[in-house]
């Protein structure tokens, strides 16, 4: 139990090959939360209230991006926590891990044009009811960096229709589609809106000095709201 005045604790997982754990921790701190480091080989979630699975190249992307990371001891705890309603966010490689472990449907495959794409990308926020998007206005357009080689979201037509029908497409590429993702999908959520995955990097858009905008902060503010109101 945490006292009302205590700061929300958000865990950030580090796998071998993770790159963006430091930026994710920094974003959480900027949003007013306490970032807590979680280690891939340790199943202990250290009493956190929410979890970020950050970007990078866990286990060198061997086999498939996210395919080895899903078997890390910490992931078993993440799956259990998510099933209990804990907010979980997967960014880029973290999104790939959440798909591989089955918390989110679909898969991320090689970009349509085969290039590694790194650029600032406009996204449209299509669902503002999830634990990670409540701070945005419906239909808001946000500018955050995207950087990946395997970012093309693919799922069966049936799954895509379900995602659309249930409002689980949270972020959609706006302007141009950087990787050929089906239906321009940039990010999706679990049925209860607590687990969200997206390919672009909100943790790189938290202040004018280092990013194209501070539009990414809303994702972390949203989670802190969800924790406080839980």
């Amino acid at each position, binding site marked *: 139990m945490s006292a009302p005045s205590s700061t929300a604790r958000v865990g950030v997982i580090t796998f071998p090959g993770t790159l963006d754990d430091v930026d994710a921790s920094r974003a959480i701190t900027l949003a007013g939360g306490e970032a807590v480091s979680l280690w891939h080989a340790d199943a202990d979630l250290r009493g956190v209230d929410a979890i970020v699975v950050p970007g990078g190249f866990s286990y060198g992307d061997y*086999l498939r991006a996210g395919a080895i990371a899903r078997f890390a001891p910490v992931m078993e705890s993440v799956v259990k926590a998510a099933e209990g309603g804990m907010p979980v966010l997967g960014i880029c490689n973290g999104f790939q891990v959440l798909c591989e472990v089955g918390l989110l449907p679909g898969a991320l495959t090689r970009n*349509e044009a085969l290039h590694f794409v790194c650029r600032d990308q406009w996204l449209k926020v299509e669902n503002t009811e999830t634990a990670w998007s409540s701070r945005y206005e419906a239909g808001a357009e946000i500018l955050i960096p995207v950087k990946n080689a395997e970012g093309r979201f693919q799922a069966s037509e049936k799954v895509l229709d379900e995602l659309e029908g249930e409002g689980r497409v949270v972020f959609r590429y706006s302007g141009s589609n950087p990787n050929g993702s089906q239906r321009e999908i940039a990010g999706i959520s679990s049925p209860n809106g607590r687990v969200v995955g997206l390919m672009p990097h909100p943790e790189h858009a938290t202040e004018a000095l280092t990013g194209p905008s501070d539009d990414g902060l809303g994702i972390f503010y949203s989670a802190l709201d969800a924790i406080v109101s839980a």
Partner: protein
Amino acid sequence: MARVVVDVMPKAEILDPQGQAIAGALGRLGVAGVSDVRQGKRFELEVDDSVDDAELEKIAESLLANTVIEDWKVTRLS
């Protein structure tokens, strides 16, 4: 001991841009008549005799392939 081959291929409905790039390169090489290329993976496993077919299918389905996007086939070589 037995040698087992697991072939993993992108499902027919999944776009395979790497295969398309290879098909395009064949044209530039001057090869005619190849209308399509699909790129997959081949795994070779050395397994004890105690590993039965059900176990091999589990390995293919839960790790070697992502069944959202890939099909797999297990073949025992002997």
